[in-house]
């Protein structure tokens, strides 16, 4: 593993949201992303999974600085893009694109699809009008549309088609990295498989690196090379897609895996039941973030916060049980 393979490196990323709690009271923070580090290697798909409120979407958005991170480094093309100005950020954004979860609300209903797709070319001053239109037609073909779709409005498309427009919008800048925030969660299963297959084809064709954020573990397993599991703003486990399903180590990962319903009634599994619900990020528990729900919690877990450490070459875990 050489450093040259790493295309995007996230170091100790923190995104805190201030909560206004009244005059004279101490300012509180929701620690949505709390000290998360990982890296994306060229051409891979990194899956980020976790339940709602664990900070996975905030992580994705913080990387693109759609939400300003509080602290930490985002190293892209050898440069920390966290602290640079918006003007300097412009050329960087060409290489880092995003696909959003809800294909209905992420396309402007009053603009034609062609205009929506051309907008980013215009902002970055690429080509003249004719060249831009040609480029858009070409991208539309790549995601399986014909040129006539250029003139249609978003409401004329179905959910799956809109998500393909979202993909086209991300692709048009020839990015190196695409951050996909729950791209198939809003779609029916038969449409979901179409979009996933298309995403894989495009990844091969354009040599893309993907950060795939999702709560659906079977989808993440299908598309990812490596997977990171988040809980309450922390990365608790990270390893390859095979390893995480065959040999999950963190109790939370185990519980998460055993909670997925499997479409096969003959499979009988032993379930790890989690009690209670995810604690408020305003008031994270002392020690390990998972200790309040962990069936195996030790005394040390309630006192000392574990750190993400290498278990072996490609397995990182943050848990006292494996110290």
């Amino acid at each position, binding site marked *: 593993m050489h450093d040259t393979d790493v295309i995007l490196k996230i170091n100790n990323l923190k995104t805190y949201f201030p909560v206004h709690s009244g005059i004279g009271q101490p300012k509180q923070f929701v620690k949505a992303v709390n000290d998360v580090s990982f890296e994306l290697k060229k051409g891979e798909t990194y899956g980020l999974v976790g*339940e*709602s409120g664990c900070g996975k979407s905030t992580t994705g958005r913080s990387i693109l600085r759609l939400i300003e991170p509080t602290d930490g480094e985002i190293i892209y093309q050898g440069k920390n893009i966290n602290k640079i100005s918006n003007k300097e950020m412009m050329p960087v954004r060409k290489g880092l694109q995003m696909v959003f979860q809800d294909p209905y609300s992420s396309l402007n209903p009053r603009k034609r699809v062609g205009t929506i797709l051309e907008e980013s070319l215009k902002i970055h001053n690429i080509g003249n009008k004719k060249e831009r239109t040609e480029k858009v037609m070409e991208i539309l073909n790549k995601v399986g549309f014909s040129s006539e779709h250029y003139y249609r409005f978003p409401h004329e498309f*179905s959910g*799956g088609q809109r998500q393909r427009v979202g993909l086209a919008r991300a692709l048009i800048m020839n990015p190196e990295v695409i951050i996909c925030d729950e791209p198939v969660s809003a779609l*029916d*299963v*038969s*449409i*979901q*498989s*179409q979009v*996933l*297959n298309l995403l*894989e084809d495009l990844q091969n064709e354009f040599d893309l690196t993907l950060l795939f954020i999702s*709560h659906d*573990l*079977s*989808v993440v*397993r*299908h598309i990812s090379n490596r997977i990171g599991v988040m809980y309450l703003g922390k990365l608790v486990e990270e390893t390859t*897609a*095979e390893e995480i*399903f065959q040999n999950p180590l963190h109790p939370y990962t185990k*519980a*998460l895996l*055993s*909670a*997925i*319903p*499997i*479409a*096969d*009634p*003959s*499979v009988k599994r032993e*379930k790890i*039941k*989690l009690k*209670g*619900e995810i604690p408020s990020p305003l008031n994270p528990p002392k020690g390990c973030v998972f200790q309040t729900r962990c069936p195996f919690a030790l005394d040390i877990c309630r006192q000392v916060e574990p750190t993400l450490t290498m278990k072996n070459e490609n397995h990182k875990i943050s848990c006292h049980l494996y110290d």
Partner: protein
Amino acid sequence: MNETLLEIVNLKVHFDTEDKRVTAVDDVSFTVNNGEIVGVVGESGCGKSVTSESILRLLDEKHTNYEGEIRFNGRNLLSLSPKKMREIRGNDIAMIFQDPMSSLNPVYTVGNQIQEALMLHQNLSKAEARMKAIEMLKLTGIPAPEKRIDEFPHQLSGGMRQRVMIAMALSCNPSLLIADEPTTALDVTTQSQILDLIKSLKDEFNMGTIIITHDLGIVAEICSKVVVMYLGQVIEEADVSSIFETPLHPYTQGLLKSIPHMEGNRNEKLYVIKGKVPTLNQVPPGCRFAPRCEFATEKCKVSAPILESYGERKIRCWNFKEIQESSIQVNRGETLNA
């Protein structure tokens, strides 16, 4: 134990729009027994929610026309007066909706909302209803129910709200529970808690339950019988293990193949059912699935198949026997190779 509780016979639901009549549910029949969990699956727009809402007659009846019968305990629900229907709703038949936030009233405490049904249907006094409400909240696994009962919906998390919905639905001991996507808005760990709860409550009260979902995993997990719908029609009905082991209808087969499996080969492409669900304005003349079916013959394109019995199962397809034989041959080939 295995008495028939609900029998839907040739149900058709038409909606009158400005210019024409749209048939959202076309000739749907199935039964639900006591103590049985029936899963109704299908993609968006297949009519699964309309079917469940017509059982309780929740649709706007000014623009809705029903045909067929919905027999519940021997009575046809479709011919009951609005007053009689009100006595059944929430009392004998209860429903859990998909989105617990928008189905709870934000300006009343959860206790108020649970007590309302109890006071209305069971003639309990306010104090008795409150006791019962606390008991129901406890049953659904809400910690400190005495405190929670005076809270408002916004003070509760998504899983808690869904538990409140379940407590409300079960408070009058319904004999039939309809759950429309009860866990779609929830996380997997919460989902598994709620599914366990529904399962244990079904055992305890011997309720008949209909679960409407698009998630085949949930069906495999808790249902005993499965009804698969496509474009307003039932296309296959069978017990849960048959559906997953030997799906007969090409649509059911396609649905099962298009979900990524936990044990599947990750390098393999996912199966895609070609085309998309047509709108109800453009229902194909023959078999409704024919334009997307890889086995479709000329007959399928012109003449619509009926739902016929095949052993214990039901299937709406002209060629299912041929399709099954061809897939068995592939299996034999595989065994030979091994």
